[in-house]
């Protein structure tokens, strides 16, 4: 017994000490391999079945769409389609496809493959519709038919003119998957992805890593990196520690608290980029104090948004002026954010004849794009109380929060936090501010805002295919909504990332996608 016990202790002690004595080349990422610290494991690597930016960061490196966002912008440029034509009535889009492109599994990319991709998402009778569900397929609900004209020409007929169609094609839901791989793997395709992109899939270890390697035959030039490893690290503190320990080359979504530390350290570089994101509070325009436009404006004057983005979000966002985020720089709007003016807020409240309006404010504990919702909620509450509002906060976990808010605020609350990430200036106002988008109609207009003029402009902006005309219309949208103030406009988030100094060519895109084709180290 004694000897046994002693040897057990000795073995245990050895096991503890051995690796410490021999610290192998730890905390060194291998050359030519980029290790990316992600916030979570992807749900699937089938681009049509996922909704999270976190998943899109991997997918845009494995797949291509017919079109893609021009680097540094939210404008589209050719990708798998070399060129396209839009009929004058805006109903027919004809794409000329790139020839000689192959999927990673060796099968050909052609017009049949394009048809397969969209019909799989949209046609309930398609043999592979059951490989879904396809939560964002409504991005393409305007499509009536997809026709193969010849192997390299494909024609989309729309049910009605829909100008955001091209930018929806550039969104990850429009990435093209290999029909042969879908046929082979069926429901498991999301674990055996095959696209045409600059990197091809190697392995996915549950909750540990997704590895992709260089596609030497990439049509747009092979990438410089040999491989990329995407690691999910859900705990933000651990992610930061792993970056500092040297186990990561790139880390996305750096907590604001840690940004300054990385900025002051020469071995790291910080990248920031404003994106098509809006953080706002929906106001209930149907009943209660916010039915009066002056009270809604008063709330917008009362909240010190500059202080929110500087202090709560620590400079990781800018102040928002309306529903069109500035990342859509082709929309030139002159509307400036509401200034912080408590005096103005008080006089508007007096004018509206409401002394101390009582409000119920829905706050969430956290969720996609919500930044720091509890602290933000408390700061907004304090600012509103300072001008005379009486604000009662109700906090809900994200899932319960969404089911409450999306059903409409009537009879429950006067305001609710919300955040959206979009890819076209049409999406957010069309889905959340139109008369036809009330919760009862299946839309997201949970605050019941209605303005016939806005409805008309939004419809017109969808019909016109002329980009400059669209730009002017969305500028008008921004102006009208800003003035009517159906929301408390708060912030536009800047995405951030930290890279090790030896990583070259890394940049963040306004689309929030992560294009690693030009990166080397």
């Amino acid at each position, binding site marked *: *017994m*004694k000897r046994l*016990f002693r040897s*057990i*202790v000795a073995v*245990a002690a050895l*096991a*503890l000490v051995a*690796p*410490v004595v021999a610290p*192998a080349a*730890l*905390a060194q990422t291998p050359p030519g391999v980029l290790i990316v610290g992600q916030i*979570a494991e992807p*749900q*699937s690597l*089938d681009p049509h079945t996922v*909704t*999270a930016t976190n998943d899109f960061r991997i997918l845009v490196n494995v797949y291509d769409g017919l079109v893609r966002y021009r680097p540094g912008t939210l404008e589209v440029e050719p990708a798998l389609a070399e060129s396209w034509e839009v009929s004058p009535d805006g109903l027919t889009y004809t794409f000329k496809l790139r020839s000689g492109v192959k999927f990673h599994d060796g099968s050909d990319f052609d017009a049949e493959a394009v048809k397969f991709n969209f019909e799989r998402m949209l046609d309930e009778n398609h043999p592979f519709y*059951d490989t*879904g*569900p396809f*939560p*964002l397929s*409504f991005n393409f609900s305007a499509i009536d038919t997809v026709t193969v004209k010849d192997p390299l020409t494909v024609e989309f007929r729309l049910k009605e003119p829909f100008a955001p169609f091209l930018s929806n094609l550039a969104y990850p839901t429009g990435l093209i998957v290999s029909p042969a791989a879908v046929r082979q793997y069926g*429901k*498991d395709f*999301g*674990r055996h992805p095959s696209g045409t992109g600059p990197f091809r899939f190697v392995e996915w270890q*549950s*909750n*540990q890593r997704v*590895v992709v390697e260089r596609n030497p035959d990439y049509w747009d030039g092979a990438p410089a990196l040999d491989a990329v*490893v995407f*690691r*999910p690290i*859900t*705990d933000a*503190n*651990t992610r930061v*520690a*792993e970056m*500092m*320990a040297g*186990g990561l080359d790139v880390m996305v979504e750096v907590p604001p608290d840690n940004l300054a530390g990385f900025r002051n350290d020469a071995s790291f570089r910080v990248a920031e980029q404003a994106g098509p994101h809006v953080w706002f509070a929906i106001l209930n325009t149907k009943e209660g104090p916010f039915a009066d436009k002056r009270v809604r404006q008063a709330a917008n004057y009362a909240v010190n948004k500059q202080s929110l983005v500087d202090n709560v979000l620590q400079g990781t966002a800018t102040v928002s002026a309306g529903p069109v985020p500035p990342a859509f720089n082709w929309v030139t709007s002159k509307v400036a954010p509401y200034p912080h003016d408590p005096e103005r807020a008080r006089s508007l409240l007096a004018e509206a004849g409401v002394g101390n309006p009582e409000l119920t404010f829905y706050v969430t504990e956290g*969720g*996609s794009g919500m930044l720091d919702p509890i602290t933000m909620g408390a700061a907004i509450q304090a600012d509103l109380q300072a001008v005379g509002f009486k604000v009662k906060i109700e906090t809900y*976990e994200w*899932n*319960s929060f*969404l*089911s409450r808010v*999306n*059903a409409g605020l009537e009879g429950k609350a006067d305001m609710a936090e*919300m955040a*959206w*990430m979009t890819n076209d200036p049409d999406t957010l106002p069309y889905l959340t501010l139109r008369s036809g988008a009330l*919760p009862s109609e*299946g*839309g997201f207009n949970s605050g019941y805002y209605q303005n016939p003029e806005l409805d008309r402009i939004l419809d017109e902006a969808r019909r016109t295919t002329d980009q400059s005309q669209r730009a002017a219309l969305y500028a008008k949208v921004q102006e009208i909504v800003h003035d009517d103030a159906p929301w408390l406009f708060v912030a536009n988030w800047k995405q951030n990332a930290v890279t090790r100094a030896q990583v070259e060519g890394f940049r963040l895109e306004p689309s929030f996608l992560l294009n690693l084709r030009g990166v080397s180290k």
Partner: protein
Amino acid sequence: MTAYIAKRLLAMVPVLFGLSIIVFLVMALIPGDTATAILGAYATPENVARINRDLGLDKPLVQQYLIWIGNVLQGDFGRSVTLNRPVLAEVTDRFGATLILAGTALVLASLIGLLAGIVSAVRQFGWADRIITFIVLAGISMPSFWLGLLLILLFAVEWRLLPASGMTAVYGGGGPADVARHLILPAATLSMVAAGVIARLSRSAMLEVLRQDFIRTARAKGLSERRVIYGHALRAAIVSVIPVIGIQAGFVLGGAVYIETVFQWPGIGAMMVKAISTRDILLVQGGVLVVAASYVLFNLVADVVQTLLDPRIRT
């Protein structure tokens, strides 16, 4: 003995069956649903209905449960909707990782706990006892996620001796030595609380035994002090420590939830957290069943070991 084990194993069946009903009900009662979790901000009633229909979640609850239990009896645990893969594959992948972590932590906790308990019992109220008691109380009281972060900061960030997170090196790793290196920090963190509890209990068990007559007899016979303590006293004391280790096994499994998140260990605890927050009911079911079954098994093993060690219990 065999009959006893068989009886205990048989008793597991109704426990697991009842548990699966409770989990199903609880998951159905908490607000929010899978479709909303998948759709996020896009969760309109219309989209939710479409996704629910595609996933078969629009059927009545009882029917869903019956379909599930019918499939389980045929060995099919269903598909995780948030991970797009069979539940069984995910659960086995993940539970293996948890067993490595929790198993190492438990062995570590037992060794450290027993040793500390013996030393402080033998040197009762001496310096060694005071120092050990202090460390043990600190270990029990410290939140393990905080301790974990502290260890990461020291060993991975400051001294760069050990990896900060994960189970294997992300590129070209994977051997037993690699896993062992990644295991040290999380296993040490996870073992802290259990080691403390085991130390406290083995201290009092040892103290009690050391006062008994047979120890005095052994000393009177002129046996060396070591022989008295490790050969006689420990052997008697360990019988009352074993069931505590069995119970600690359950706590270690539970504690793994935090530790796995802090160290990004790809275990079942981290999986359950995500599965619950995304309302992935089949994945939750699979995970709960495996964890519950292993908890029952651990306790069974502890009871059996105790019986083998203590002739008085054997009938």
